[in-house]
């Protein structure tokens, strides 16, 4: 049970390192803050990339082009067959006329293709929308292969390459995030531990004398642990503050940007504090071996 004087002492000592090494501590907090900012940024980009991928996958529709000579009857028969394929959510018929209107829209006002064409060269087609769980490169490929076997079908077209690229980037980014996180973790712990070590190196004698005078290891340790945690806390708050500020500026311009929930923010700061704790613990260990 620490007495009141002891608590006062411990609190004072926890801030003593700050007071004595203002510059070093300040820069430590800034560096650690930047490191954590990078960490948080990567996390947010990963989150956003994930939600972007979700949205993008909504656009992975198949376009099934039919042969010209089928006739309305056979064309209509295909609709129920397409709908029952696993992974297909809905199906829409696009006639030759509708296709021509699409082309006209693409070419713009200057060109009047509707009056220019004699016979419509564009084939009829079905627009197939997939269910969310089928919006992966693998699932789309499977469905394409199945439909291509039907004699009525001339060609199946979809943005396959784009999905693959997006998926690859997403996984690359997740990996990069993980690596960056680990590096940043290590760097943050190291920088804090080094600063606490500086405090301790200048107090090696103090520690030795404390032991000889009858201080327990916990009494000796506490101020250094507090110092580290305090640095972690400040760094975390700074990083989160910068991030939140930037977000609130960008929110109006970029729609659908995902940000941390308040609880995630608290969790992040707690993580920073524990990084500080780990850092100072690493610094202290050496001194309390005996």
């Amino acid at each position: 049970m620490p007495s009141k004087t002891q608590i006062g002492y411990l609190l004072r000592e926890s801030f003593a390192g700050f007071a004595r090494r203002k510059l070093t501590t300040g820069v430590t907090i800034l560096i650690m803050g930047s490191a954590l900012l990078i960490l948080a940024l990567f996390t947010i980009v990963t989150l956003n990339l994930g939600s972007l991928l979700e949205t993008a996958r909504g656009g992975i529709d198949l376009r099934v082009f039919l042969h010209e000579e089928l006739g309305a009857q056979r064309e209509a028969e295909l609709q129920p067959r397409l709908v029952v394929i696993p992974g297909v959510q809905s199906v829409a018929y696009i006639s030759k006329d509708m296709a021509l209107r699409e082309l006209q829209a693409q070419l713009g006002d200057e060109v009047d293709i509707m009056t220019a064409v004699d016979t419509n060269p564009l084939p009829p087609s079905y627009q197939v929308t997939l269910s969310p769980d089928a919006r992966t490169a693998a699932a789309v490929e499977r469905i394409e292969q199945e439909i291509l076997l039907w004699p009525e079908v001339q060609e199946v077209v979809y943005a396959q390459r784009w999905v693959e690229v997006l998926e690859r980037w997403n996984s690359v980014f997740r990996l990069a995030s993980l690596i960056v996180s680990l590096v940043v973790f290590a760097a943050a712990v190291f920088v804090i531990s080094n600063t606490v070590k500086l405090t301790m190196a200048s107090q090696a004698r103090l520690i030795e004398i404390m032991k000889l005078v009858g201080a327990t290891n916990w009494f000796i340790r506490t101020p250094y642990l507090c110092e580290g945690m305090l640095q972690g806390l400040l760094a975390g708050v700074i990083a989160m503050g910068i991030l939140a500020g930037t977000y609130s500026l960008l929110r109006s311009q970029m729609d659908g940007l995902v940000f941390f929930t308040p609880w995630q923010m608290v969790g992040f700061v707690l993580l920073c504090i524990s990084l500080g704790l780990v850092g100072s613990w690493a610094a202290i260990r050496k001194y309390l071996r005996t």
Partner: protein
Amino acid sequence: MKFDSKINKGPLDLRTVIGFFHTHLLYRDHAALTDVSFTVANGEFVCLTGPSGAGKSSILRLITMDLLPTEGQVIVRGMVSTNMNRRRIPLLRREIGYVFQDFRLLEDRDVYQNVQFAQVVVGISSKQMKNNVMRLLTQVGLWDKRHRLPHQLSGGEQQRVAIARAMVNSPKILLADEPTGNLDPVVAQEIIDLLFRINTGGTCVVFSTHDHEIVKNFGQRVIVIENGRITSDEEHKTAASTAHRLADRMYRPSAPQPAAVRVQEGSERA
């Protein structure tokens, strides 16, 4: 370790505070102490003397359990060196005041804080703390230099701060390693008187010095250690009590009173 963990076969005298039983101490390959045995009873005043490098400081370090004996046993206030819980060492040290030969003051704290510090570790209440510090700094004549850092003090003044720190917790055992090595004869005598006084109050004092001559005149128990062995352990009880009474009479109560000093401090600042 060749010895049984229960070396001390006979019944321990209840009055024994410090007991060395066939203690050997090796620093790597250098034998600092060889077969040292003695006991110190509660309230005793023991002088430890011997030439430079004899092993005086080593004995004191064994008493605080800063070192553990290579062979044999050291028992201090019931704590047995061969069979103990390391976590309890801090508790033992709180009952021991140690005047280190090299002072070991906190260089970045002032005189007041240096003395106060030993009490903070123990957890004494703030008010009591202040009174204790004031009383001791006054006794060693440093109350008006209480805001100085150690490097702003002369060698002798630093030594007196170390003495005040060792005494501030009213320890059960006071270990004084050459506490007068840097003091002129007058101040040295005052410090020795202080040690006698604290001893009269029931504290067991171990006083280490290289100067056999000083110690002979005390008329106390003198343990002479040479080359790591005890070569003589004589008591001079009759003379001792005389010295005691003498010291008590000689002790000057004219040391500046805290109240008076406070006024002085105020005027200094003005």
